[in-house]
């Protein structure tokens, strides 16, 4: 470094790794953010928004006794960009795809069968399916429980402190595990309720996510980094940089993608080494996200101040342009893909309805949910499990 010009040349020679890829990803994000700032200007005047929400809710309530009001619902959902086919149901005559739906409400978790039959499992919370849908894990007042789908308790593990987010692992050689949080700690218990042990003494309040096909677990550590651990060997496979608070983690079915949802962004990592595939800065509060079964497509539930929307994004390029599947006034609160990936469930809380939509735009609405379930589902993630179940 003889002089300033030598230093300048040397600095210019230093290229950040993957500079071309970084530029491509950044441009996709910047362009999306730029394009998405336009629709905000065209939104209805502030004074009209409460009326639009009220119209949607009133239309659905009225539909219980007056099915012709379907036209009003069509109006409410008709602002989406594509032509829709809307079917309205007053009750759960059937689910639009095979599998059983598990939703959590203030009264407890419900299982809804394909024919529309439903069962309340009891006074539990935060229920989720076992890998083949043979059991459900949930939380009682002070215990982790394993239940059969008819509500029978298989085992219960009493633990002091605040319990949260029990999640059942895939099955490996006939054995399974359940990860859960106790206070700020991450713990594991075998699928038969034995061998309860500590995994990490510092975990953030985010549901852990099992990688398909094994005992590898992703969770958010106390320092705000995602950690991916092989729980069979207790070795860390990789960790991320420190992130804004992560509200959700989810793996793609093939285990090659891990999504992390934060308040306003969606980040996708490579599943093997944790390289960052991309990041999407979202135009509104992110409520939930889920990979479509068997693909890298991601559905993202967004909540604007007066509206909610479901977007589809590419998990291989999450910052690229998104596609709006459905949007309407009011609040959506629950998201789940059908096991065959053909239907999406969005819980439309302010309209007391379940909105089933396909990526191509077919829509089916089931209303009067709070009366049927005793309360509207209050957890963003629902489980729609297992076509053979």
């Amino acid at each position, binding site marked *: 470094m003889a002089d300033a010009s030598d230093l300048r040349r040397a600095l210019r020679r230093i290229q950040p790794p993957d500079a071309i890829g970084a530029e491509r990803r950044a441009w996709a994000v910047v362009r999306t953010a730029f394009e998405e*700032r336009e629709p905000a200007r065209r939104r209805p005047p502030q004074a009209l928004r409460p009326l639009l929400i009220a119209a949607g809710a009133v239309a659905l309530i009225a539909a219980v006794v007056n099915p012709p009001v379907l036209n009003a619902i069509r109006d409410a959902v008709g602002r989406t960009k594509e032509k829709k086919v809307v079917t309205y149901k007053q009750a759960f005559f059937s689910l639009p795809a095979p599998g059983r739906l598990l939703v959590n409400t203030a009264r407890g978790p419900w299982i809804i069968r394909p024919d529309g039959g439903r069962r309340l499992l009891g006074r539990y919370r935060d229920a989720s399916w076992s890998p083949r849908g043979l059991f459900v894990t949930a939380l009682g007042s002070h215990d982790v429980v394993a239940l059969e789908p008819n509500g029978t308790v298989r085992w219960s593990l009493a633990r002091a402190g605040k319990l949260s987010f029990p999640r059942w692992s895939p099955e490996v050689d006939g054995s399974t595990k359940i990860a859960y949080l106790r206070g700020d700690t991450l713990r594991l218990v075998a699928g038969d309720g034995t061998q309860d042990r500590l995994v990490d003494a510092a975990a953030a309040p985010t549901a852990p996510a099992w990688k398909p096909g094994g005992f590898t677990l992703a969770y958010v550590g106390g320092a705000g980094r995602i950690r991916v651990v092989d729980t069979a060997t207790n070795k*860390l496979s990789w960790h991320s940089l420190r992130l804004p608070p992560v509200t959700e983690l989810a793996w793609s079915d093939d285990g090659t993608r891990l999504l992390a949802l934060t308040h306003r962004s969606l980040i996708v990592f490579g599943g093997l080494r944790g390289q960052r595939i991309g990041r999407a800065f979202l135009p509104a509060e992110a409520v939930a996200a889920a990979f479509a079964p068997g693909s890298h497509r991601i559905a993202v539930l967004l909540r604007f101040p007066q509206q909610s929307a479901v977007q589809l994004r590419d998990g291989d390029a999450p910052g690229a342009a998104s596609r709006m599947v459905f949007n309407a006034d009011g609040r959506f609160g629950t998201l789940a893909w059908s096991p065959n990936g053909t239907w999406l469930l969005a819980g439309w809380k302010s309209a007391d309805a379940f909105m089933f939509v396909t990526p191509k735009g077919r829509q089916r609405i089931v209303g009067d949910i709070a009366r049927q379930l005793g309360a509207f589902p209050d957890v963003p993630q629902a489980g729609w499990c297992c076509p053979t179940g």
Partner: protein
Amino acid sequence: MARLWGGEASWVRGAQAGSVPDLEALFREHWPRAHRAAYLVVQDAAAAEDIAQEAFLAAIRALDRFDRRRPFGPWLHRIVVNRAIDWSRARALRAEVGGDALEERASSPLVDAAYSEPTAAALAALSPEHRAVIVLRHLLEYTPGEIADLLDLPRGTVNSRLRRGLDRMREELPEEDDG
């Protein structure tokens, strides 16, 4: 940057009117230097990408309020370099707090093995504040007075950091072999 000024003002005007091609022209013009500057200050590829990307997003959010009579580059570089300094300080703080044993056992793919070029290594020996002034002066070619404005520092502090930073880099660089 003077040669770009006419085109740049027109790109800003176009972007303010909603033109994607004009926004892209601005992005393509400024991304490489913004990204490289962030990388040289933070020395972390993922963080540099984030910082440069978020700086552009911040610029877009404020685009309608941007004064077209001013050049775009310094506005962007102010955001990039200040965020890069903040990120580096935060990382240093986290390192002091320490991670747990599990994390220390991990081999992080995010550590940039490529950061071994002698100049880069010499730069890495500096504090983020010193790296920032070196990058602003010798990569982005701002004058000490302009750097003082960008970083909200007294000009004397900028000159002092430049001098000490360069001295330290010379100490870190290997002796040149004329043979």
